[in-house]
């Protein structure tokens, strides 16, 4: 069975896609210790069983709101096989911010480029192929409200889960910052901590530079 997490900004049609993927096979619970709703569903595609977790709608992945923390902890700690990032095609730039954060986390991202109809009605033409090339991850155009693109999305999820090699595109922050990232990475590797090696090194370094309290607390135990 492959484990899939759905993530995206609020208002991008995430619930609709979740419902399409899982149909009636879903149950609702709560995330441990908090009153935020947790929805989990299952489906089988091409003989592969998937468990789909609907993460809270978030704009970012800082450690400062319960929703963002739930989403981030799930991806960091539970390491789902595939993370489906639902992107609103009519609001590309802001949605891609979250995509970039997911790529920093080195998640196995598949982008569902939703609301293609809304983008078109606003006069936009979105080049999904170009987006896939620039991000280095599969991009599936969808109109979830009409069920379009859902089968292709399932294909892409199964492909991504079974694919051995992944092309990684690292988005740079400019020379000075990149240099600092390298130096922090070096400090971290020197610690030789097994606990820390569970996390992507570059992500730890970026979060430390950003002053992320949770990562600081984690790392200060070992460094």
């Amino acid at each position, binding site marked *: 069975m492959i484990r899939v997490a759905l993530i995206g*900004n*609020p*208002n991008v049609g995430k*619930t*609709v896609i979740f*419902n399409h993927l899982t149909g009636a096979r879903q149950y*609702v619970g*709560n995330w441990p210790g*908090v*009153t935020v*709703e947790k929805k989990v569903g299952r489906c089988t595609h091409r003989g592969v069983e998937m468990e789909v977790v609907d993460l809270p709608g978030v704009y970012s992945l800082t450690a400062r*709101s*319960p*929703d963002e923390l739930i989403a981030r902890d799930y991806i960091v700690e539970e390491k789902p096989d595939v993370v489906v990032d639902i992107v609103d095609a*009519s609001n*590309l*730039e*802001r949605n*891609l*911010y979250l*995509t*970039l*954060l997911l790529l920093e986390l080195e998640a196995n991202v598949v982008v569902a480029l939703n609301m293609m109809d*809304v983008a078109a*009605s*606003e*006069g*936009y*033409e*979105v*080049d*999904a192929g*170009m*987006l896939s090339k*620039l*991000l280095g991850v599969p991009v599936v155009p969808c109109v979830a*409200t009409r069920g379009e693109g859902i089968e292709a999305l399932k294909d892409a999820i199964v492909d991504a889960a079974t694919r051995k090699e992944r092309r990684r595109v690292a*988005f740079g*922050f*400019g020379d*000075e*910052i990149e240099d*600092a990232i390298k*130096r*922090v990475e070096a*400090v971290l590797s020197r610690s030789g901590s097994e606990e820390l090696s569970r996390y992507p090194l570059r992500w730890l370094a*970026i979060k*430390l*530079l*950003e*002053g992320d309290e949770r990562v*600081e607390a984690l*790392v*200060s135990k070992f*460094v």
Partner: protein
Amino acid sequence: MEEIRRIREELSKKLGEDLEVLLPARRYETAGEISRRCLRRREERLTLTDMLDHVFLHRALGIPIFLALMYAVFQFAYSVSEPFMVMLEAAFGWLGSLAGEAETPLASLWADGICGGLGFVLVFIFPIFFLFFALAILEDSGYLPRAAFVMDRLMYRLGLHGRSFIPLLLGFGCNLPAIMATRVIDDERDRLITILVNPLMSCSARLPVYVLLAGAFFGAYAGAAIFSMYVLGIALAILMALLFRKTIPQLRGKPAPFILELPPYLRPTLRSVLLKTWQRGVVFLKKAATILFAGALALWALSSFPWGAPLEATYAGMLGHALEPLLRPLGFDWMAAVALFFGFLAKEIVVETFGILYGVAGEEEIQAAVAAHMTPVTAFAFMAFTLIYLPCLATFGIIRAETGSWKWTLFAVAYELALAYAVAATIVAFGSIVWG
């Protein structure tokens, strides 16, 4: 760690900017560049969303439209469900009568306990499902953030968030779906406060009690007396919200910042609306309906045993007598205590209980009997007490489910009891000064 901090400070000094600001900005530069390379704008269009927002967020029209929409939601939920409720009640009445006259404990358990209880629980289902349906449409259409935008200023003044308005308003119908509707509030503290004060919004189940007492005592001023209960509820809710915010450490602080996207309007799909309605309806069935049914059975047992005794001699009557000394200062006798005790199941039951206790039936007869047992001041205090004293059993269950905490649930019960007592005592004291 020291070394990492040094690297960070060195770099931020060199770049003249906090890295916590700089890194998001750089990400947005990348996101902007990618989106520019993937997007082609064929034409500039005035979108439907722009046009709709000109109307829905209009300076003069925005609030009237919001209120009209909410009125429509109420009408839909409570009027459309009315015929279903009547049919259901009739069906359970008939089922209950199958066991014949309720002369044996078993027949009574079937007729009054099980059928009465089930019918009572199921009657809730229609308005609640219809309400969830209407709310799901508003939610899926993208209107809810607009409602928060329009009402935020008012709510902020009261120490709450724009998103708190709809749940509070829904409380006038029924506190139960209203408390479930607080899920749209992101901030945990804002949400808790909205849940805690929600039972003070006078739900429709309390209206029959007001009508009975106001009709019996206040004649031409009955309408004003009833209206004053709604105003009292709102005033207390505001006061409590401000008080909780000031005094309870877990709730202290300013309301959450208002950083809210106004997404494009979308046409809701039936599938998604029905699914949402169903999912929330199931929560109601699981968390509230079971507790309600158990409560109905317990009350049946309390008021039926010892078997064959008059109500005064049943366990419920004994309880009323036991509670009487506590309520005496407010001018309530043991029968009022029993009525209030039963009112915990659902507040409209208070009216029925008076009827049973006085051994009369029919609105006017009950009014006459009540008028013989209370003074106008006591009656007014009783109305206020009914408004405040406890969330009903179903609301109690949903507060537990939505806060996920017994502590907050019991706190809601405790503060409401104390507040009800204080307000009723104030009314009685004030009344006795004015009217001697």
